[in-house]
């Protein structure tokens, strides 16, 4: 049952993943989804349906700034850029995730042996 389990784990982490890949530069929606998949070696594949609500929510809260411009390969795209607010949010989320993941690793460490 890897699919549903992975889905549950990913729930709530989309924000962290999006902010992380945008820290390196501006990207548009489809590129963000690809970049997350690439960076995680395919381990994380956020639902495309969850990606856009997350992007728009981050933009509405000032974490991202969006602008339309020509892409390198094709028509105009809506590019997202992380803001200072977004960087602060990323730092906070990353810290929470580190605490959470270390705790989980310690807790379930014995079970994976």
């Amino acid at each position, binding site marked *: 049952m890897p699919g549903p389990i992975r889905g549950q784990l990913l729930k709530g982490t989309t924000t962290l993943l999006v902010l992380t890949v945008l820290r390196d530069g501006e990207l*548009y*929606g*489809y590129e963000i989804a690809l970049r997350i998949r690439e960076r995680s070696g395919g381990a994380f594949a956020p*639902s*495309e*349906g*969850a990606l*856009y*609500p*997350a*992007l*728009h*929510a981050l933009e*509405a*809260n*000032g974490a991202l700034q969006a602008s*339309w411009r020509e892409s390198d390969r*094709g*028509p*105009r*795209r*809506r590019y997202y850029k992380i803001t200072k607010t977004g960087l602060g949010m990323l730092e906070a989320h990353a810290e929470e995730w580190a605490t959470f993941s270390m705790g989980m690793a310690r807790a379930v460490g014995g079970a994976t042996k």
Partner: protein
Amino acid sequence: MIFATVYAIALLCGTIALVIGVVALMRRTERRLGPGPGGPSASTTPGAGAAIDPIAAYLDRMSGELALPAADVAEVRAELADHLADSIASLEAEGLDRDSATREALGRLGPPAELGRQIHAAHQSTRRLLAGAGGGVFAAGGGFVLGYIAGGFMVSAVIIGLAAVSGVLMLLGLHLPNLLSDTRGLGGNAMITVLATAIAAYAATRYAIRTSASVSHRTPRTIAVVWAVIGGLGFGLWALFGLHGYQTWYIVAAELLIPMAAVAGAFWRVERGLPQAGRAVLAAGLVAFIVLPLGLFAVAGGASVTVSSPGEATSFQMSDLHLDTVAPMAPTKWLPEQDVISGDFAVDYAADLTVVTASRFSAEPATLPIQPLLANWRDIRFEAWHAMSIDLPGPGGIDTHYTSPFAVQPATLHGDSLAASFPFQKYRDAGSWWVVLTAVGPDGRRYRLDIGGGDYTSFSGTAWEWLTAPQ
């Protein structure tokens, strides 16, 4: 005359150009405040041309859940269409045919209604709501100023138009009644101010909604009720308690239109933007600013009116004043003829009071102490009666339609004079008045001690004060 006519035409054209210019300016500012994507549209949807386009159907279903401004909806549609195009191309590169790739790409986005609801919820942040509220307040201020300027010129243009119609009718021998004759121009001035304010209230609410919707990413309809309540209450309170000046029934009625104009601005075709106009019209509006004062000067110069003052009235009989309506003159046995009591009045503008005085004069004349003369009299008082308009030909005097005074004040002794204060400026429609000094004689009957005097006083205060004022 030709000079005045040319300028009058220029005045009208300038006014129209100015109004369009102001509207264009508002529209341009509105566009600047808006989030416009700068080009995306639904035309970017791939696969256009198919009999039933599943992508277009998906986007339509998703858009149905977006209660957002049209520009935002267009952005979301364009962004998702781009995403689907990329996704389908990628899937086709992996070997899927077009239809299968499309189905798979749409399936990855999930149910369209659910996606639409989530994106809609994502747009409704508190941050944007607060920014929208702040932007709305700011825009309301700007809209009010622009609306007031435009309203002032619009009302002026209407007045000039009416004057032109009136002039033509006069040439044809038809004379319109002068509805403002008893207000000495105050009614006209107040009406211009109030109507301009109503137009400003309309523009302020409308502009606040358009800006607030744009900044908060909500549809104008969804926030119109809030702004209608704010505008209606705010302008309603201002109209009742804030506008201080000349008041009469039609001014108060016009003032009550101000909050209604604000509410109308919130609901009447609020989804539609203001008409667009180009730079040429803006330039024409600027020119109008130069032309308008010159035109007003020319028109005003050519429309001087000669008004005869009451002091220039022809000779009249004492009976023309109808003073017996008040009381009979005091018998000479109790008020000797050589002892004349004469009144005077002055307006205390700071206190909105008219101070009346009565003094005793000898034959020289010289002011004498009035106290000895009052030994025979009691209950001495000043009575204020409605009077014939002193702007009309004639001496003035008591309006015989009335059988009692509309205000009475006891006369108090101040030095060698009797005095009292009347708040005529706070009496509704006091208009022309005549004040007479009366007292009760030894026989127990009330008599007049002087012939009195009168003037015209206009109501000065707020609409609320007028509504609650004594008649």
